[in-house]
């Protein structure tokens, strides 16, 4: 990832001259062939493991949630411990609307979930993003705890600790039903939502706006110096990230047909952070790799012995923080670069 902000349209002359760097810059947003692989794998999973589709939808939702965090943390460098606040806001929006029979159409439901989370993201971002470092960390944590306690206290509306069970969600397009026993619809619907959100995030990242976010992360002073509206961009990014997390939360509520306080837990916020960092943050596919690695590890290790999973996760985190700061993707890139240099040398 380059440091300074890159102009949206590279110098046309340089492109025409065919300078390799200019070409790479001009084409950096083009799709590569391997970008189709995750989606082919997801479709392959649908046919290969029909019994694991509930697990699969959970995986897709985790990817979406981690992708939303990547926008705030990986690209804009906003370090937050409270991202589950937005996941929960989305989940409770869908949950409460469906439980009280107000609105149970799934697609518009997700849009409403995103809207609710975006409003909370905007309001909290307006005040929170004045701070940095530990204070910001604490404020995001407290905002999430505040929402969770509010949901706990407003038992009459949210079901309190027990949550809202047995949500009925309308069929997608009025045809495809959410069957609690067979998760086919849930899986494909989650995949479609993830693809839509991913394309949006990908476009955003390669836009001038996305580049300026990277600039803010890499060198705040310089971005101020060139006159970028830093605070406004951070707030917009935080709001979009919140909306995406809200959609992930809404999807979680729809596919599970319940909501409870775990949607707003510190556990959930920490998990998504771990997933993203495991994969590699500030990279479009970090969320994908991280979620697959995390859930696969959890699935197999926890079956052996739940405590072994916790121990393994702890060791993994310590090792990543100490030796592989850019996650699995970063590790892969380093190894590849080393291999390439050796290959060229010989």
């Amino acid at each position, binding site marked *: 990832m380059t440091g300074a902000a890159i102009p949206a349209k590279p110098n046309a002359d340089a492109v025409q001259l065919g300078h390799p760097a200019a070409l790479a810059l001009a084409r950096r947003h083009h799709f590569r062939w391997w970008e189709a692989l995750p989606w082919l794998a997801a479709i392959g999973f649908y046919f290969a493991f029909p019994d694991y589709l509930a697990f699969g939808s959970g995986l897709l939702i985790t990817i979406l949630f981690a992708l939303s965090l990547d926008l705030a943390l990986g690209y804009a460098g906003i370090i937050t411990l409270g991202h589950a606040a937005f996941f929960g806001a989305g989940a409770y929006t869908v949950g409460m609307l469906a439980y009280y029979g107000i609105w149970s159409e799934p697609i518009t439901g997700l849009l409403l979930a995103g809207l609710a989370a975006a409003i909370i993201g905007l309001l909290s971002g307006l005040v929170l993003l004045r*701070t940095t470092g530990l204070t910001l960390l604490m404020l995001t944590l407290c905002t999430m705890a505040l929402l969770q306690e509010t949901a706990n206290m407003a038992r009459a509306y949210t079901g309190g600790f027990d949550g809202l069970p047995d949500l009925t969600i309308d069929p997608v397009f009025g045809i495809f039903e959410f069957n609690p026993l067979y998760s086919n619809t849930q899986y494909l619907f989650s995949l479609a939502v993830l693809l839509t959100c991913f394309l949006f995030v990908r476009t955003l990242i390669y836009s001038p706006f996305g580049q300026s976010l990277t600039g803010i992360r890499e060198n705040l002073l310089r971005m101020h110096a060139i006159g970028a509206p830093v605070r406004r961009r951070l707030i917009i990014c935080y709001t979009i990230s919140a909306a995406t997390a809200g959609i992930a939360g809404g999807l979680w509520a729809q596919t599970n047909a319940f909501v409870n306080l775990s949607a707003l837990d510190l556990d959930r916020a920490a998990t998504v952070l*771990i997933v993203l960092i495991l994969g590699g943050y500030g990279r479009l596919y970090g969320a994908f790799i991280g979620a697959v690695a995390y859930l696969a590890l959890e699935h197999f290790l926890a079956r052996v012995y739940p405590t072994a999973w*916790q121990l393994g996760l702890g060791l993994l985190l310590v090792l990543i923080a100490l030796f592989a700061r850019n996650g699995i993707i970063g590790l892969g890139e380093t190894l590849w670069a080393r291999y390439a240099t050796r290959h060229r040398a010989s």
Partner: protein
Amino acid sequence: MDLLGNFAGILLGGLSAGTVLFIVSVGLSVTMGLMGFVNLAHGAFAMLGGYVIVLAMNRAHVGFAAALALGFIVTAAVSVVLERLLYRRLYRAGELDQVLFTIGLIFIFIAGITIAVGPESQSLHLPPALGGQINLGFVQYRTYSIFLIVVGALINLVIWLAFEKTSIGAQIRATVDNRRMAESLGIDVDRLFTITFAFGSGMAAIGGGLGAEFLGLDPQYALKYLVYFLIAVSVGGLGSVVGVYYASLLLGVLDFVLKLYLPKGGTVFIYALTILLLLWRPQGLFGRKET
């Protein structure tokens, strides 16, 4: 009279809980103030110490005071090893790596204690001298709570004296204020940090042991009270011992009152107040503005 007694009871209960919070958090405040290291695993040291103390008393039948000393020494020793081997590699890393690393440590502690001791909650059996009630003239109250409040005030006094009157204290204050300048003056910040880290972890251990009676002690302890430790430190102000003391007492009393009168979700107010306070004074009540 009865009203006065009620009021005093609430105040004393809150103060004793706040005192435990202070004893646990004070080390976190100083180490964060010194190095700016976001050490989320501080609660894990409190948990480790609590286990050493409670197990020493329940299984090896060591006395209360001796068990506290043992907990302090074991936890301080473990923390020094971790600091020398692992923490120091991340002093110059970003907050994100520090958060990740210390969350990892928490998981390792939780899993380690679950494997070594078991997932069930351990209970502290108080020595008989601290068990009963004490008459304070205007109110009868639990001896142990009064004991905690007195011990906490003494600890605060001792740490304050050490900060103000000793050479090491002066070095710590200088480093919190301006680390680069302190280093230029020849203060060995590395060594200073190791000492305060060990001391802070040892204090956390004592806090974990003293608080086990009413906070409980199970492997989830390190995560369960993390938010409270962090609130005490950030509200009090990084690197300020007196700040953490007042913030902890305030938090203890507030929590006690809210749990009594608003048992469902009264903690909302604590989070809301913390948010407002940090927006008003990002450096905390007694913290110094960053230069």
